[in-house]
């Protein structure tokens, strides 16, 4: 795979989302706790100022997720979520923000059934793009703009990368606090859209503080001309402000939003009440990110 020229993403909508000001990138698991409520929840994120929305397609073995998102995955799968229902959901959504699908590789690989897989078998090439191609083609058709696949390392990503390029989608990679040197190079030569900067080790989950390792990670990425969105542990406007002031181009928030959905299930709240809470936390996070951005650019101008 030829190295990508830095800054050349496939999706214009994603590029635009990071073009002026910080991007607020919320995540929800699609179908949590059911299809209809989930539509209302994602639309609430959009009203709350989302610049990009990450939509989780639940996989039965979510090894990168903490307990909060695991709970969402279970609720969604029990509600009957499948890849095809996910695509129908994306088509039905009425939002302005570009949409990115976050899922695990096996669902991408299996899509299209044994036909797609046996095509790669007869070509005898384990790295053939026939497995992921069917999934990416469908994703492009329903209007998705990119992917995040937490269990797909750069080494195994070429078939998906090629399919994304064919259909004009972006492929976002996660960079951990431990990602350095050659590994970082390998990832950054394949990433497009934005890079997902994992703020701390471990699995996803809201935390009361945000790790210092974020600043070091952002420093390592400074030379790469790709938007840097920081995730893992952000739950308040104050976190968002600090992260963006520290140099992030965007913030990714998942567990803090999924917690609201979970509370809604537990407290038996109406869909409207949960959607209102999601919209209001979204406004807080977006405002925090903008304060951080103003502080950073203001400081730069006054130098």
């Amino acid at each position, binding site marked *: 795979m030829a190295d990508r020229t830095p800054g050349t993403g496939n999706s214009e909508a994603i590029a635009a989302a990071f073009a002026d000001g910080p991007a607020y990138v919320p995540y929800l698991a699609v179908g949590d706790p059911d299809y209809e409520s989930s539509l209302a929840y994602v639309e609430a994120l959009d009203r709350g100022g989302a610049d990009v929305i990450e939509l989780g397609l639940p996989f039965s073995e979510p090894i990168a997720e903490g307990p909060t998102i695991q709970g969402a995955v279970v609720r969604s799968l029990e509600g009957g979520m499948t890849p095809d229902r996910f695509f129908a959901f994306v088509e039905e959504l009425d939002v302005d923000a570009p949409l990115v699908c976050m899922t695990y590789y*096996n*669902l991408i690989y*299996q899509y299209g059934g044994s036909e797609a*897989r046996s095509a790669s078998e007869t070509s005898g090439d384990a790295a053939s793009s026939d497995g992921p191609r069917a999934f990416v083609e469908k994703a492009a058709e329903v209007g998705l703009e990119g992917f995040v696949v937490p269990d797909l390392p750069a080494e195994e990503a070429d078939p998906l990368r090629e399919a994304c390029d064919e259909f004009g989608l972006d492929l976002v990679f996660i960079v951990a606090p431990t990602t350095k040197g050659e590994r970082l190079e390998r990832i950054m030569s394949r990433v497009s859209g934005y890079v997902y900067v994992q703020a701390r080790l471990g699995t996803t989950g809201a935390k009361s503080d945000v790790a210092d390792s974020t600043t070091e990670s952002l420093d390592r990425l400074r030379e790469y001309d790709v938007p840097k969105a920081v995730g893992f542990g952000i739950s308040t406007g104050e976190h968002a402000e600090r992260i963006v002031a520290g140099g992030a181009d965007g913030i990714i928030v998942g567990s803090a939003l999924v917690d609201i959905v979970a509370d809604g299930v537990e407290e038996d709240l109406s869909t409207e009440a949960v959607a209102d809470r999601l919209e209001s936390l979204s406004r807080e996070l977006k405002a925090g990110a903008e304060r951080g951005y103003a502080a950073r650019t203001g400081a730069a101008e006054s130098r």
Partner: protein
Amino acid sequence: MSETEPTTTDAPEPSRRPGRERGRDDGKFGRYGGQYVPEALMPAIEELTDAYDRYVLGNEDGFMDEFRERLADFGGRPTPLQRAERLSERYDREVYLKREDLLHGGAHKLNNALGQVLLAKYMGKERIVAETGAGQHGTATAMAAAHLDMPCEIYMGERDINRQRPNVFRMKLNGAEVNPVTAGRGTLKEAISETMRDWATTVENTHYVIGSVVGPHPFPVMVRDFQAVISEEARAQSIEKTGELPTDVVACAGGGSNTMGSFAGFVDDESVALHAIEAGGSTLEVDEEAGVAPNSASLFAGEEGVLHGARTKLLQDSHGQIMESHSVSSGLDYAGVGPELAYLVDEGRVTPVAVDDDAALEGFHRLSNTEGIIPALETAHAFGYLEEHAEDLGERVVVTVSGRGDKDLESVIEETDKRDIEGAPDMSMFTGGI
């Protein structure tokens, strides 16, 4: 890489190297294997790959010498290759038992656990985490960790904790913490996912002792290499006792560590037929709606996919969601299998066979009352196979007795009471616990 084999070549393709070394360099077995893990784990996996190359393959600092010495002194190796007199008579061919049930802890699991805990020590790690299904790998890891003075935490599905109480107690006796996993159905698959999550948080000071030839590279090759002592010994013992290699090797297969350990030394001996015996559970039919496969026969009935870090054969639904597997033996109860076994099956080198719960229980009782050996329920599947397929085998058969059955007595009482099994004692008086 190409699946069509060049007939002559100077440097064989990685996956075409002699079977004993397959996958060591790149973790690929044809189309299977790889490293499908979250980015946070990659540095730990690279560090482990480096340690595997240096200490295991290169014997740096005398690692392998110390490993073998501890396997002998602490583990009790070598284990015997014993001629089974009644079974030989019954099946009219020579039946030899590779007695891994006599290894310290009562199962083959210590070979791998001791190797990995020792490796963690050489790597300067300070803490061990491991998953366990039946509890055999957990107990082996807890023993090895106590032996080598390392703190140890074991993740175990809640359902398995209930099925395997004696093993939970053994782990605690050896000083390990046992963390129940309640996600999903609470078995091995969920325990592996949860251990990976722990490791993703603690990679800097922690080693994950995976219990089988599964997971991302280098685990499948490393676990195989630690377990290969089974077949290295069996091969030499067969030649010593009979002057010849066996015609067949039979081993039960869940994740595949006993299987690969029993096969590795024979993979390059083309005259030796290799039989992997999987848990057929109650039926090979799949309930797609409920997401349940009432068996654990991923080699026999599974399809290619990606789970727990590797591309392999899996029990999954048409969307790619992983199925809940089932077996009367919790050690075989896993929806995936080692990538190398998936490859060897595709190549025709290993024959997978599914043996159901009933036949396994019958095998359990047969070995117990004819040979005086109470096998693990996992192992019992291999004896179920022997009863059904002895006619298809050659004249010298080696069966690996992967573990002893003490841990399974409660399940056996319950399951035997439901059935009419020839030669089984009346268990009804014990139902409800011993």
